[in-house]
């Protein structure tokens, strides 16, 4: 009941947007732009012949692979840069320069290096998500409160175990924030990357629908599905943020 009360305004907004869209298409008598009904029918058509699931699976696989590689590099590297001052001053300028470069700008280089197979989008996703995660992890280590490190020292935790017992758990909330940012940009990038030359994925589906007979109902279906999956991925990361062992950092 409470959830419904909270969600009601946004449901109304969505309904109004769909209604306006529908009305506009009919009022302008557009031959190309589809009505919501056409989009739903198009989606059902793709879902029933199975191609929709193949595209979704391909996109998710690429995001999963690129993001996993980025996590595997960014977290150890970020922890190291946060902990060892020399590593920070050496590497941080490089990453600060690379971070603002849009992943889209890497597309020509990705094609040059990896061709037009799966490796290119995976590389682009890696490039897009690795920097925010490195930065967040480093910031997380830098902002560990000294009192926790001192308490660990007081209780005789050897330096070799300090990382596991204090530094990592104290940084974990920031790592999760970085992962949430990272998966967000990864999802943005996969669609853009798939528009280039691949034969599968939601990005490809959108471009292909337009090129093969102006199926704008499927273009919009693809866009909406991308939005919904993005929302789900973000919701999954939010679940991580609600773990009790990291909530302290976000609460209040």
């Amino acid at each position, binding site marked *: 009941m409470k959830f419904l009360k909270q969600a009601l305004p946004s449901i109304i907004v969505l309904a109004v947007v769909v209604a306006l869209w529908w009305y506009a298409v009919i009022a302008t008598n557009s031959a190309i732009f589809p009505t919501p009904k056409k989009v739903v029918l198009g989606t059902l058509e793709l879902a029933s012949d199975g191609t929709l699931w193949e595209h979704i699976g391909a996109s998710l696989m690429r995001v999963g692979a690129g993001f996993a590689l980025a996590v595997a590099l960014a977290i150890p590297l970020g922890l190291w840069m946060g902990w060892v001052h020399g590593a920070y001053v050496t590497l941080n300028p490089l990453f600060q320069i690379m971070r603002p470069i849009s992943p889209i700008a890497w597309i020509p280089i990705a094609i040059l290096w990896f061709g037009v197979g799966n490796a290119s989008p995976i590389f682009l996703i890696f490039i897009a998500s690795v920097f925010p995660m490195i930065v967040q992890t480093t910031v997380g280590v830098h902002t560990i409160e000294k*009192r*926790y490190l*001192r*308490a*660990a*020292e*007081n*209780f*005789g935790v050897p330096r070799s175990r300090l990382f596991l*017992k*204090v530094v990592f*758990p*104290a940084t*974990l909330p920031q790592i999760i924030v970085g992962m949430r940012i990272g998966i967000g940009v990864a999802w943005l990038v996969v669609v853009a990357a798939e528009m280039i030359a691949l034969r599968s994925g939601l990005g490809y589906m959108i471009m292909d629908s337009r090129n093969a007979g102006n199926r704008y109902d499927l273009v919009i279906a693809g866009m909406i599905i991308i939005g919904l999956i993005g929302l789900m991925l973000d919701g999954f990361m939010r679940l991580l943020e609600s773990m*009790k*062992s*990291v*909530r*302290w*950092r976000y*609460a209040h």
Partner: protein
Amino acid sequence: MLIERRGATPTKIKVDNIRKSFQNDKVRLQVIEGLDFEVNEGEFVAIVGPSGCGKTTLMNIIAGFLAPDSGSVNVNGVVRNGPNRKGIMITQQGSVFPWLTVRQNLLFGLPDDMPNRAALADEYAALVGLKGFENNYPHELSGGMLKRADIARALVVKPEILYMDEPFSALDALMSLRMQNELLRILAIEKHTVMLITHDVEEAIHLADRILVLSPRPTRIQASFEVPFAHPRRVSSPEAQALRVAILKELGVTEPV
């Protein structure tokens, strides 16, 4: 000035002519200037002083977190050269790890291979009145409960010395008083040597066996008062109030009579 040793109790902490200064840009700030005193085994010594006089610096040196420029701190006759689990520091902010439950916090300082460590942790949680909250996370606790967890975590490793730096200052007056009584109750069982830094003279009189008054910076020991009252103490008694006035006078505060 050397404080006279009392009775036959052995000396636990011996602070020998320590000096400490901090370099800040071009200004050298002398914080501690030749300070000596001793703390006996099982004694409760409170240190009061004007704010900014270097109380916390002194405590950090004694607990081993900071090295003095010269002079030494001996604990059990051995020169102190770093913090260790025989002396646990409890600060105003507290340092209960927020990513661990109360029980996990208590287990933190115990060796992994120690038998019955979980039972010991629960025993100390119960000792400070946190029974039933062992699986709660710190952000689910109130300020007073958090402080109890801090104290329990210190006690469970069976330290010989507790270093308390304004431990109850962040609590409201009522909770502070309640925690003082709790501390006395626990100390009656556990008999630790305690060093307490406080700006609250009544708290010092309530808790300590001896009160050292520090001078303004560069600080040295300006006066020492025995607190000869048996527990439980009434801070409102005329004798205690007379002591309070005398200590406040040392701190440069005179009250209208």
